[in-house]
C-alpha cells in the first residue's frame, strides 16, 4: 500500500470532525473520497497533507509510520496536495508561486529567476496554460489561478497526490486537461486521492471510492461495481425525500422581489428573476458564474451596471448592507466564519446584532432575552446558555444562530448563501424545515448552493446562472441534476 | 579727520566705562573665574575684520536653555564684527550634534561654540575642529576633548553644596531629609547630588531617608514628592535638584495639609514667586543662563587675541530669603530665570505676562 490511514479521529474544540476513518491508497490508482459538505473530507485531506495532526489514529506511507504537524513534512515524504482554497500568494509572480519553498538557486545562493522562468513555462505548458511566469498571481482569473495551483502540485516529485475539489472553478476544457494529467500520473504509478461530489467525473476518472458520512467511514467500493444511487444512499444515509420538507402545493404568491435586466460588474448578464411571497428560489450554476454577485447586488445594493431591482414593487436604491437590512432583507453569507459570525462574542450578542442595524449609535442596544430564548428554542440551537461564546458551537448551531439573527429582526426577504455548508445532517433537515416555514409564513427565501440535490430537494424553483445571466428555470422536486447541469454548462460540456 | 577722532574717542570712552582693560574687547562676567592653574589661551589674534560664529546647541527643550540661547543671540547682535551667527540645534540628539559640529567645520566658521549634550560623545568632532585651527568654546555643560580653546562651566556640585549647607544649618545638623532628584543618570544631577553628599559627611545626624527622580519636571516631581511625603511622615527637610520640583513639593504639602518644611530651591522666577507667596524656608542656588552671552564674549576675546584663561568656573552665590525682592520680577512669568543679562524689552517680549 502506498498510503494507509487507520482509525483517524480529529476534534476541534467541542466539534468532532472525524471519528475513526480509515482509507488505503494503492499505487497507480485514483481513489475518490466522497461525502457531503461537512462529512469530513477536507479535514481528512488536511491531516494527510500535514496541515494539522490527527487527534488519534495512524498514518503509514509505504508501511512507514509518519507523524506530521506541518505541511512541509508531508511534502518531504512525497505527498503533494492541491488545496480547495487557493493558497497562491497574490503578491508573488506565477513563477515565484510555482517554486515557493523549493526555489531554484544560482551558485551564489540567490533565486535563479531566469531558470525558474524557463521551468515555469514548461510546467505551465504541461497543464495547458500560456502565461507570462513573471505576471502577478493576484492579477489572474480564478480559473487560471486554479490551474497554476494544480501545476504547482503536479510538478512536485511526489508519490501521492491529493486533489481537493479541483474542478470547482474550472471550465470544460481545463477540466479535460486536468483529467489527462491525472491519468498520466496514474500511469506513472502514483497514487491519487481525488475529492469531488460531481458523480459523473468520478465514474469517468476513478478506480475506487471511499465514502464518508458525518465524519465517519460509510463505505468503500470499486468504482466499476457501484452505481450512483448506491453512492448517494451511502453518502446521505437516507433517501433525500426524508431530509427535505414537502414542497409547497399552493402558488408562489404575489411577487416580492423582481430583478429586471440586471447586469453585475464583471459578467455579461442579464439577470431576470422574480420571487413570489411564498417561494424558496435557488440559484444554481458552476463555480463563480455570478451567483454571489446577484445576492450581493440585492443585499448590498452595489450599483448594478444596468437594470433595476424592485422590492415589493418599489425600486431598491440603497448603498451598503445597512441599506439592505433597512429595506427588510437579511443575508447569511457563504463564508460563515469570516463574514457572518463574531466568534469571541456570546450567542446572544451574535443574534442581537440583527437588531442593531439602522439604530442611532447613542440609542440603547436591546438584547431581548426572551425573544432570543424563543428563537433558540424554535431553531433547537444546542448550547449551554445564551452567554456562551458562539465559537464553541458546532457549525450547524452556528448557522442556526445566524438564522435566528434575522428571525429576531423579522426580515421580509432572506438570502441564504450555501445554507448548509459545514452543517451536519441533523441540523440540515432542521434548517430546511425552518426555511420552508419562513416561506410559508410569507418571507421568501433566495438561496445559492453548490449542492444540486439540496437545490432540487428544497427549492420551489431553481434558476440557473451562467456568466451572470439567468439561462434557465426548473421546478424544484421534479428536475434532475443532469438537466440543471446541462443548462449550467451551456453548450460546452454535454 | 575730526569726525574720526570723535568716533575713536567715543569708542574709547565707552570702552573705559564698561571695561578697564582692552578698549574694544568685552570682558567676561566677574562671576566667572579662572580655575586654579589654568593656562592662558595663546592663540594669535585673527586678521579678519568680521567673524562668522557657529553655535552647536544640544536642544531647547527646557526654558533654561531657551533663555541661554536668547542671551547668546542677543550678545552676538551687539557686536557688528560678528557678521553671522549660525545656530544649529540638535533637538536633543547627540548624534546630530556631532554632525552639526562637523557641518560647522565644513562651513569654515571662525569659532565654534558648543553647549554639549554629552561629556564624551562630541570629543571626536571637537578634536577635529581644534585640529582645523578653529577655536572651540565649550560652555554650560562639560565635554572632555583633549584639546579645546576655552571652557566655561558651572560647578554643579556647588549647587548641591549650597542646598545641603542650607538644610544642615536650618535643621541644626539633625533630621531626616528626602531628596527629589533630576533625571536618573544625568551627569548634572549626579554632580549636584555629589555636592550634597560631600556636605552631609560632616553632619552624620542628617539622614537622606529616601529619594525619587522627578526629571526636573513639575509634573513628575509632584507625583514623586507626593509618594515620598505620604510614605514618610517623619521628614524634616527636602533637598531638590530643581525649583520646579520644589514648587511641586510645596503644593503637595499644602494640598495634604502638612506643615511647610525647609526645602532647597533654585533661582527661577516661578520658584521665587512661590517662595515669596508661601513664605517658604528655602535657598536659591543660581545656575546662570548668561553662559550664552559669555560664550560669545569668550569667542570674541580669543579671536581678537585678548587674554583669557582656558578653564573658567562660575560660582555665583545662592539667593537667600532676604534677597528675594532683589531678584524676583513680578512683571515676568514663571519661566524666567533670574540673573539674566538680557535687556528689559527682550525679557518682556519673552516672558511678558
Amino acid at each position: 500500500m502506498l498510503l494507509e490511514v487507520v482509525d483517524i479521529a480529529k476534534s476541534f474544540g467541542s466539534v468532532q470532525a472525524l471519528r475513526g476513518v480509515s482509507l488505503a491508497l494503492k499505487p497507480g490508482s485514483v481513489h475518490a473520497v466522497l461525502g457531503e459538505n461537512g462529512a469530513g473530507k477536507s479535514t481528512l485531506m488536511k491531516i494527510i497533507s500535514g496541515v494539522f495532526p490527527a487527534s488519534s489514529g495512524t498514518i503509514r506511507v509505504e508501511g512507514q509510520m509518519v507523524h506530521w504537524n506541518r505541511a512541509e513534512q508531508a511534502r518531504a515524504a512525497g505527498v503533494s496536495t492541491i488545496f480547495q482554497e487557493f493558497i497562491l500568494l497574490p503578491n508573488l509572480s506565477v513563477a515565484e508561486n510555482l517554486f515557493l519553498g523549493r526555489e531554484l538557486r544560482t551558485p551564489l545562493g540567490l533565486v535563479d529567476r531566469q531558470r525558474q522562468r524557463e521551468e515555469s513555462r514548461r510546467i505551465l505548458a504541461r497543464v495547458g496554460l500560456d502565461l507570462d511566469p513573471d505576471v502577478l498571481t493576484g492579477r489572474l482569473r480564478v480559473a487560471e489561478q486554479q490551474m497554476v495551483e494544480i501545476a504547482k502540485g503536479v510538478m512536485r516529485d511526489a508519490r501521492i497526490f491529493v486533489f481537493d475539489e479541483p474542478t470547482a472553478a474550472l471550465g470544460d476544457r481545463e477540466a479535460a486537461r486536468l483529467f489527462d494529467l491525472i491519468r498520466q500520473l496514474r500511469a506513472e504509478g502514483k497514487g491519487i486521492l481525488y475529492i469531488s461530489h460531481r458523480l459523473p467525473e468520478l465514474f469517468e476518472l476513478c478506480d475506487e471510492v471511499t465514502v464518508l458520512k458525518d465524519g465517519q467511514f460509510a463505505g468503500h467500493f470499486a468504482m466499476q461495481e457501484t452505481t450512483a444511487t448506491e453512492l448517494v444512499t451511502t453518502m446521505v444515509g437516507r433517501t433525500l425525500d426524508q431530509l427535505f420538507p414537502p414542497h409547497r402545493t399552493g402558488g408562489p404568491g404575489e411577487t416580492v422581489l423582481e430583478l429586471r435586466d440586471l447586469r453585475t460588474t464583471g459578467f455579461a448578464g442579464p439577470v431576470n428573476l422574480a420571487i413570489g411571497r411564498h417561494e424558496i428560489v435557488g440559484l444554481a450554476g458552476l463555480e463563480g458564474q455570478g451567483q454571489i454577485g446577484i445576492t450581493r447586488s440585492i443585499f448590498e445594493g452595489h450599483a448594478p451596471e444596468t437594470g433595476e431591482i424592485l422590492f415589493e414593487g418599489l425600486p431598491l436604491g440603497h448603498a451598503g448592507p445597512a441599506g439592505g437590512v433597512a429595506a427588510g432583507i437579511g443575508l447569511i453569507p457563504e463564508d460563515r466564519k469570516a463574514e457572518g459570525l463574531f466568534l469571541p462574542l456570546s450567542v446572544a450578542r451574535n443574534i442581537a446584532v440583527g437588531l442593531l442595524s439602522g439604530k442611532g449609535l447613542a440609542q440603547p442596544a436591546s438584547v431581548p432575552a426572551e425573544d432570543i430564548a424563543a428563537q433558540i428554542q424554535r431553531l433547537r440551537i444546542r448550547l449551554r446558555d445564551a452567554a456562551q461564546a458562539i465559537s464553541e458551537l458546532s457549525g450547524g448551531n452556528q448557522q442556526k444562530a445566524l438564522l435566528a439573527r434575522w428571525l429576531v429582526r423579522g426580515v421580509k426577504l432572506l438570502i441564504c448563501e450555501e445554507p448548509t455548508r459545514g452543517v451536519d445532517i441533523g441540523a440540515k433537515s432542521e434548517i430546511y424545515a425552518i426555511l420552508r416555514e419562513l416561506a410559508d409564513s410569507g418571507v421568501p427565501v433566495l438561496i445559492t448552493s453548490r449542492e444540486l440535490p439540496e437545490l432540487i430537494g428544497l427549492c420551489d424553483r431553481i434558476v440557473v446562472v451562467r456568466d451572470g445571466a439567468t439561462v434557465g428555470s426548473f421546478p424544484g422536486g421534479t428536475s434532475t441534476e443532469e438537466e440543471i447541469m446541462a443548462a449550467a454548462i451551456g453548450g460546452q460540456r454535454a | 579727520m575730526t569726525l574720526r577722532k570723535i568716533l575713536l574717542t567715543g569708542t574709547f570712552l565707552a570702552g573705559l566705562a564698561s571695561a578697564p582693560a582692552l578698549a574694544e574687547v568685552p570682558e567676561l562676567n566677574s562671576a566667572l573665574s579662572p580655575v586654579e592653574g589654568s593656562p592662558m589661551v595663546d592663540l594669535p589674534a585673527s586678521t579678519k575684520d568680521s567673524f562668522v560664529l557657529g553655535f552647536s546647541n544640544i536642544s531647547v527643550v527646557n526654558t533654561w536653555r531657551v533663555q541661554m540661547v536668547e542671551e547668546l543671540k542677543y550678545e552676538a547682535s551687539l557686536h557688528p564684527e560678528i557678521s553671522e551667527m549660525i545656530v544649529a540645534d540638535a533637538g536633543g540628539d547627540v548624534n546630530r550634534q556631532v554632525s552639526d559640529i562637523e557641518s560647522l567645520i565644513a562651513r569654515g566658521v571662525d569659532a565654534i561654540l558648543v553647549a554639549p549634550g554629552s561629556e564624551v560623545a562630541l570629543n571626536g568632532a571637537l578634536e577635529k575642529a581644534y585640529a582645523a585651527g578653529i577655536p572651540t568654546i565649550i560652555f554650560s555643560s562639560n565635554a572632555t576633548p583633549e584639546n579645546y580653546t576655552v571652557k566655561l562651566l558651572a560647578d554643579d556640585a556647588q549647587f548641591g553644596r549650597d542646598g545641603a549647607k542650607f538644610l544642615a544649618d536650618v535643621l541644626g545638623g539633625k533630621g531626616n531629609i528626602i531628596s527629589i532628584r533630576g533625571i536618573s543618570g544625568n551627569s548634572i544631577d549626579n554632580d549636584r547630588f555629589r555636592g550634597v553628599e560631600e556636605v552631609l559627611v560632616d553632619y552624620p545626624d542628617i539622614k537622606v531617608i529616601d529619594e525619587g527622580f522627578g526629571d526636573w519636571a513639575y509634573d513628575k516631581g509632584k507625583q514623586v514628592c507626593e509618594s515620598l511625603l505620604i510614605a514618610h511622615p517623619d521628614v524634616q527637610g527636602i533637598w531638590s535638584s530643581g525649583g520646579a520640583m520644589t514648587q511641586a513639593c510645596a503644593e503637595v504639602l499644602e494640598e495634604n495639609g502638612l506643615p511647610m518644611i525647609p526645602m532647597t530651591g533654585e533661582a527661577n522666577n516661578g520658584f521665587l514667586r512661590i517662595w515669596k507667596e508661601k513664605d517658604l524656608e528655602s535657598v536659591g542656588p543660581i545656575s546662570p543662563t548668561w553662559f550664552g552671552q559669555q560664550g560669545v564674549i569668550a569667542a570674541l576675546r580669543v579671536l581678537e587675541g585678548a587674554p583669557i584663561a582656558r578653564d573658567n568656573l562660575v560660582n555665583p552665590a545662592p539667593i537667600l530669603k532676604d534677597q528675594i525682592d532683589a531678584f524676583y520680577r513680578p512683571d515676568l512669568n514663571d519661566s524666567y530665570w533670574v540673573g539674566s543679562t538680557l535687556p528689559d524689552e527682550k525679557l518682556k517680549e519673552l516672558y511678558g505676562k
Partner: protein
Amino acid sequence: MTRAATAEQGQKIRARTLALLRGAMAIPAWPALILLLAIAAVVQPRLMSLPFLLIVLRQSVPLALAAIGQSLPMIGRSIDLSIGGVIAVVNVTLALPVFAGGPVWMSLAFPLAFGAVVGLFNAGLIAFVRASAVVVTLGVSVMLVGVSYLISGGAPGGSVHPFVRELATGRWGMLPVAGGVLVVAALMAGLMLRRSTFGHALHATGASYSAAWLGGLAVRKELVVAHMLSGIFAGLAAIILTGYIGTGTLNLGADLVMASVAAVVLGGTTFGLGAGGVLGVVAGAFALTFLANLMTGLGAGKPAQLIVQGAIIAGAAALARWREA
C-alpha cells in the same frame, strides 16, 4: 457511591475550578492588583493606609481616563497613539492667559472639543483612507507635540484656571474631586459600552469587521465615534493633569501613551476584544500607578520599573490569548 461516580465528580470539580481560575485570570488587572497589595502589605505596610491609597487613586485618574479612551479604538481593532499630543497641546493652551483668566467653560470645552477634532481627523484617515492606525496616530502625535512647542514658544509656564486646579487637586473631606470625575466618566463609558448601540456594535466590529459590515452595522461611523471619544477622554485626562500641575510644561502626557495601552491590556482588553470592560481598565490603571509607587517606595529605580512594566504588558497580552484559546 461508586468509584466511577467519584472520579466523575472529581473531574467535574476540577473542570469547575479551572473555569473559575480562568474567569479570575481573564482580567489580569485583578490578580495583579491583589498581588501588588499583598506585596505592599508585607514589605511596605504604610502604602496600605487609606490616605495613601486615596492619593494613588488620585494619581491614577489621568492614566485611567486616558486608558478608558484608549480602550475604545482598541476594542474596534484600532489604536490611538496621539493622546500624548492631545494632552501636550491642551496643557500649554490651558496655561495661556486667555484661558487662565477667561471664563471657565473655555478651559473645560476646549480640551474636549480639541480631542474630538483630533479623533475625527485620525478616524477619517483610518476608516476612510484605510491607512495604518499605528502610523497615522503616531504622525498626528508628532505633529501635535510640534504644535504644543509652537504655542508655548518652547517656554511654557503661566497658570491655569482656578476651577481646573480645584477639579484636579480639590477634595471633599478625604475624597479627591478628581476621583469623582473619574467615577462619573467611567460610569458613562461603561454604560455606553454595555448598553448603547455604539458599544454593542463596536464590540461586533472588533470581533469581525466583515461580519459587522455585512450585518448592516455602521462600521465606519463607529470607528469615528470611538476615535473621537478617545480624543475626548484624552482631553479630559489633560484637564486633570493640567489642573494637577497648575502650569504649562513641555511633553506632558508623553508617558501616558504607552502606559494607557498597558493599562488597557492589563484590564483584559486587547485588539478586537473588550472582555474586561471599563472597570478592568480602571483597575489596570490603578495597578500600574500603585506599582510605580510601590517600586519608588522600595527604592527600585526607574530601570526596574520599566522592566517590570514591560513584563506586565507581555504577560497580560499572553494571558488574553490564552483566554481566547
